């Protein structure tokens, strides 16, 4: 202990000599010098009660860093530990499914194609069967295909009616021929 106090005194004296070069803290390039390097600037303080020299170590605050890391660990473990315990319980006591050949005449449910019990549970209670998804996509394609077909037919009908003029479309309102005043054409000398 006496040696420790001598070491601390020597380190303080050495640090005090080095203060002009390292003002912010003495921890620059700690891996080069092999000497005893205390973190931050060290200032001796009186009123020590006999065992070793009390030092007042001046360094940058680590309050925010430690607070962040503590909060991070807390919130990760808050749900992480129950999840890990649950998954460990499932893996040990329930276990994964075994691969088997499909028995004769048996159609497996869509969740029985997964191995892990949690995947099976999720597929069974939350996800739709892939057949339903397939049929939904085919229904959508069918509706869109019928729409394109109808649109093309409408365009073709419109083109033909406009061209031939014998259909119900492309009729334009013309005034009644009884309203036409032919008096200016009635004599040839007008």
């Amino acid at each position, binding site marked *: 202990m006496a040696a420790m106090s001598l070491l601390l005194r020597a380190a303080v004296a050495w640090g005090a000599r080095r203060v002009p070069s390292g003002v912010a803290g003495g921890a620059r390039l700690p891996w080069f010098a092999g000497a005893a390097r205390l973190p931050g600037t060290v200032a001796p303080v009186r009123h020590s009660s006999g065992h070793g020299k009390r030092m007042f170590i001046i360094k940058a605050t680590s309050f925010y860093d430690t607070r962040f890391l503590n909060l991070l660990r807390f919130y990760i473990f808050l749900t992480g530990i129950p999840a890990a315990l649950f998954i460990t319980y499932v893996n*040990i*006591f*329930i*276990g994964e*499914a*075994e*691969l*088997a*050949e*499909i028995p004769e005449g048996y159609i*497996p449910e869509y969740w*029985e*194609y*997964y*191995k892990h*019990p949690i995947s*099976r549970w999720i597929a069974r209670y939350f996800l739709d069967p892939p057949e339903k998804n*397939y049929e939904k*996509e*085919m229904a959508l*394609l*069918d509706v*869109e*295909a019928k729409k394109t*077909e109808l649109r093309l037919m409408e365009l073709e009908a419109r083109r033909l009616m406009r061209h031939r003029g014998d259909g119900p479309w492309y009729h334009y309102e013309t005034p009644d021929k009884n309203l036409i005043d032919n008096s200016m054409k009635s004599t040839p000398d007008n």
Partner: protein
Amino acid sequence: MPEDSDWEVYKVPPTRTPVSERTTSVPNPVTFFQTVFSYVIDAPVTFVREWIERQQAKNKFYYYHQKFRRVPDLSECLEGDYLCFFEAEAQWRRDRLVDQEIVEIVRERLGACKQREGPNQFQNCAKEVEQLAQVTKAYQDRYGDLGVHGNARTCLMKQKHRMMEERKAQANASQ
């Protein structure tokens, strides 16, 4: 978790090293290390694993590999039949995955053969090498340069071009 490789598939034949007679009275240190390993590591791990398997054997359940029905191919679909296109496309993608797995298995076989034979691999693995060459050539011919947007239609067009080239080559050869 990634699949563990199956022990039974590529089983190495048992070694045929002859039993040598002892020439010294010094005991073999390897046996000591083997007993230490079996007591310290092997026995506890085996005990725990067997306990776990006993717990899991109480309620066994199985999973299956899904078998899909074959649907008409893209070449059998009528023009404008988008539902048929969709089903043929889905089937083509499944078939492409299966073919990729087949190539992977043949590659694994070659790797296992090389590992097994060691220095004799160049002579003894010729069949596997030939098989891998054929399989990869076939895969490249069918799915080769379609690119990331390759679908059943582009593959069919590639097949059509291949058949046209073959016919041209035949016509040139027969002239």
